[in-house]
């Protein structure tokens, strides 16, 4: 009896031991946004265990072992799990149920498919790091096609203006050109100036060199390393929102998708977007799951341009005939910049020392002290949604000289503006100015404006005098016409009248007419702008109460030939011209006889195109050095065999002061259909590499399809799960479609 009992206990122990040791190894497919990976897992009939080290490495964690515990760490998270047994060989089995309870709904385990799927909106681990999106937030603008091409001669713009006023007739001409691998700007009027600039936007120590003759007739040279465009990341901003459940959300900056998530079941989402020094314009696109079109909204992220990235030094140096100046800025912290300057003008030397502080992202304070004059300047800027405030204080010797304030706020159709200041003028005269203004822009088209001005002057020789001014205007804004009636009183006149703006397709007319009741004379202004295919003309005339401030001016442009135009404005306009042409000989260049295909449309994110007579697409007023993304609209291509050699999407960087011509060759591609035979695994695991670069998916039946240019190619079959290279085949592709068969046994490597 006793022996039987011992035998039973022994059998139960052996059975239990044997049962505990039966662990069936199963492959678990881990799906995280952007990649898939197999992770070792085990199943004992009741619970699933997973290899903690493999799993947490795959999720982007650093793994540490502490006794029978596994610690998973990343920059923001720390998770501790108990190993099912003592770790062996840096391996630790973790119960999947522990893992799922630890990560909440960030991980989903499909027991039937043996899939562990990570949510793209997980907050318990860094999904974005896994997607390697950080690489798009590099300090300098990322790689792009169509880099800047420097030329000896890249076009010329001539702006002109003729003004007639009380001082006589004054012509003015400004030339802006892209020549000698840089840009030249020159003005000819009462005096003349010219400046030549050579820029190196990617350089660290010298971004721009400038030399020329300036307004006072002095010649000089300037150098700087201040970035010409946004280059440095200041912070990462988290944007939270709510939309339709499971909607797809994209954050787009300059046409580049910087983050993409899917809203959760309640429609909540959280985007992380980079914010550069300066202004970052962010577009959030929302597309409901199953929805056809995405909607978008804009956000603007501001970072004071006066702040310098940490540990960076910016300098600018100017040397002229009778003066020199050196400015230095050093980023001590991402919110604190130290600055100093030394200058000498006509033998007078001055040193400046100061700092710029941004304690919160919507406020910046700058202060500087001038030596030896002991003049102290302080500036405070604040901006919040719908509210802006600028203040400026100037003091010397412990006494305030000037203080100015500008504040604006807007809410719905109302906007409020307040300008005011206190100044100390020559002869110890003091002036106090207050100028509040309110605007109403109603959606129905109603416009209203009301302002009141207060000006008080006080001095040692005169009594304090106070004057008031006011203006009230009300009108209506239609699609093409804006008409406003006004009544105003200022220091010289009291007038009643009406003003308006009429916009037609190629012309616009701005007019104003009123009656000055003080002087019993009419006041008027008239502006007209006409645009045609041969040029444009802008003319403006004005007459006010006293007659002596009357003025007339005209300016315009004449289009001569591509690259040379007389334009009405002298700023450095950046533009792009997209020439989509049929590349018959497939050499990538537009040869004679290869015509522009005028029916093909393209989308330019954050800007728009106009169609030129040549059939090319043209976009003006681009931001220099900014990266723009283009999408060729496939539905507009009439010939199904034509494909853009640039790909359907590409980007370019706008050049300052010149028109960038972008050629998009449309080429005939050859259709290659293929079939993989002797399959030993599911075809969906396979991909086809073309010369180890482009990838093509494999269909359920083992087929694949490619469109390529004629040439010799190597087709490689890989398994995406275990990254095995399975087979390889070289093919010669001519101008006719071909069919390729790759046998996993015969063509196996």
């Amino acid at each position, binding site marked *: 009896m006793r022996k039987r009992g011992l035998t039973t206990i022994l059998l139960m122990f052996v059975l239990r031991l044997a049962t505990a040791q039966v662990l069936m190894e199963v*492959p678990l*497919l881990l799906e995280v946004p952007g990649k*898939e990976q*197999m992770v070792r897992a085990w199943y004992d009939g009741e619970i699933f265990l997973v290899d903690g080290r493999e799993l947490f490495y795959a999720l982007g964690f650093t793994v540490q072992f502490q006794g029978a515990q596994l610690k998973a760490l990343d920059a923001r998270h720390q998770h501790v799990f108990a190993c099912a047994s003592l770790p062996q060989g840096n391996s630790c089995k973790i119960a999947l149920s522990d893992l799922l309870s630890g990560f909440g709904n960030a991980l989903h385990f499909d027991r039937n*498919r*043996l*899939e562990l799927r990570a949510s793209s909106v997980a907050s318990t681990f860094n999904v974005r790091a896994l997607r390697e999106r950080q690489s798009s937030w590099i300090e300098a603008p990322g790689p792009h096609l169509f880099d800047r091409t420097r030329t000896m001669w890249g076009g010329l713009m001539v702006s002109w203006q003729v003004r007639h006023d009380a001082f006589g007739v004054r012509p003015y001409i400004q030339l802006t050109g892209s020549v000698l691998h840089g840009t030249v700007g020159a003005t000819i009027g009462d005096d003349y100036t010219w400046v030549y600039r050579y820029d190196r936007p990617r350089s660290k120590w010298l971004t721009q060199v400038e030399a020329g003759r300036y307004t006072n007739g002095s010649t000089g040279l300037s150098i700087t390393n201040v970035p010409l465009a946004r280059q440095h990341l200041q912070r990462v901003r988290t944007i939270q929102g709510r939309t339709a459940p499971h909607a*797809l959300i994209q954050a787009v900056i300059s046409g580049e998708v910087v983050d993409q998530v899917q809203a959760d079941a309640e429609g909540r989402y959280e985007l992380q977007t980079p914010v550069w020094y300066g202004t970052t314009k962010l577009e959030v696109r929302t*597309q409901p*799951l*199953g929805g*056809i079109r995405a909607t978008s909204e804009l956000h603007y992220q501001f970072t004071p341009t006066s702040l310098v990235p940490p540990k960076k030094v910016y300098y600018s140096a100017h040397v002229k005939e009778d003066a020199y100046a050196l400015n230095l800025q050093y980023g001590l912290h991402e919110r604190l910049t130290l600055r100093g300057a030394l200058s000498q003008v006509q033998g007078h030397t001055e040193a400046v020392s100061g700092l710029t502080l941004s304690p919160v992202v919507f406020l910046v304070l700058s202060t500087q002290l001038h030596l030896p004059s002991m003049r102290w300047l302080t500036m405070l800027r604040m901006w919040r949604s719908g509210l802006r405030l600028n203040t400026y204080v100037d003091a010397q010797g412990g006494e305030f000289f000037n203080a100015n304030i500008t504040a604006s706020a807007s809410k719905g159709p109302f906007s409020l503006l307040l300008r005011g200041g206190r100044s100390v003028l020559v002869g110890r005269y003091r002036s106090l100015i207050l100028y509040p203004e309110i605007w109403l822009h109603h959606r129905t088209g109603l416009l209203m404006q009301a302002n009141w001005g207060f000006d008080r002057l006080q001095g040692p020789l005169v009594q304090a005098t106070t004057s008031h001014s006011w203006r009230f205007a009300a009108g209506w804004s239609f699609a093409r016409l804006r008409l406003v009636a006004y009544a105003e009183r200022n220091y010289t006149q009291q007038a009643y009248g009406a003003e308006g703006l009429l916009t037609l397709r190629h012309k616009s007319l701005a007019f104003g007419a009123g009656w000055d009741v003080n002087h019993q004379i009419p006041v008027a202004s008239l502006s007209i702008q006409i645009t045609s295919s041969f040029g444009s003309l802008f003319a403006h005339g004005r007459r006010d109460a006293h007659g002596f401030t009357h003025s007339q001016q005209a300016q315009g442009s004449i289009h001569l030939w591509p690259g040379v135009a007389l334009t009405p404005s002298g700023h450095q306009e950046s533009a792009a011209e997209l020439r989509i042409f049929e590349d018959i000989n497939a050499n990538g260049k537009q040869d004679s006889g290869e015509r522009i295909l005028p029916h093909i449309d393209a989308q330019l994110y954050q800007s728009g195109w106009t169609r030129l007579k040549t059939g090319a697409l043209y976009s003006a007023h681009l931001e220099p050095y900014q990266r723009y993304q283009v999408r060729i609209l*496939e*539905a507009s*291509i*009439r*010939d*199904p*065999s034509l494909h853009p050699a640039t790909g359907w999407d590409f980007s370019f960087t706008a050049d300052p002061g010149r028109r960038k011509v972008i050629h998009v060759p449309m080429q005939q591609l050859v*259709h290659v*259909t293929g079939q993989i035979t002797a*399959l*030993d*695994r*599911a*075809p*969906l*695991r396979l991909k086809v590499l073309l010369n180890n670069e482009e990838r093509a*998916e494999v*269909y*359920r*039946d*083992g*087929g694949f*399809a490619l*469109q390529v240019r004629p040439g010799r190619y190597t087709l490689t079959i890989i398994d*995406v*799960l275990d990254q095995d290279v399975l087979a390889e085949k070289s093919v010669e592709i001519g101008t006719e479609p071909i069919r390729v068969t790759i046998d996993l046994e015969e063509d196996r490597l």
Partner: protein
Amino acid sequence: MVRSFLVLSIIGILACQAYGQAALSVTPAYAVVTNEVPYGAFTLYNAGTEGVEVTISARYGAIASTDSTTAVVLDEAGQLGDLTKHVTFFPDRCILPAGGEQIVRYRINTVPEGGHIALMHFAMQERGAIVNGQVPAVATGLSIVYNLVAPLVYLQGSGIPILTARVLESTPNTLHLYLESHGPWPFLGGIRVLQDGQQFGRAEAAVYTTRLVRIPVHQDLEKRRVQLQFDTEYTGLPRSIQRILGVPSSIELTW
């Protein structure tokens, strides 16, 4: 003559739900092009949450009716010409991820005078997940293929469709007609039912060869004698195409 009949539901709806997760739609549901603009595009959109594989082909045929059913008929389209020899399209295969969109462009090359037709077939197959242990034969075999069909009609020149009609059934609310086309020009437009000059009902139909048409009428046609008048107003048909399509002469019907 080979005739294949598929259910009408997959023709008319042109958007289907497969395996619960993948849903493909094709727009436009049909296309009529002319020698002035001999090109166009279909847009495929996967509104589901699973990826799909789509195989695209052009087959000669038409949507036609017998006395009781309407279905896709392949390899026969009456006097309409075979457009498949003259149409080039791209791509012929694609993979659409969830929410993905694909444009299928087509162009018609030189075609003889008359109306021509091709049925664009979009065969959709769920792509499914990558599973490590899946056997190749199972992976390739276990799948349901859904076919969407969009007629592509090409008109070279212009002409007037020749139609005949007979009444299949007349109820107080509906008039059931059987229309037959006897010429090389298809009819796409409205059919109006008139009795003594008064309109009793109207319906739109595309008649390539034969077509059952059900016209709702608001009054019982007791006299058993009506006149059919035709127009070219057809939902989704551009006005430029409506101008090319001729209006058949009216038909007097008694039963």
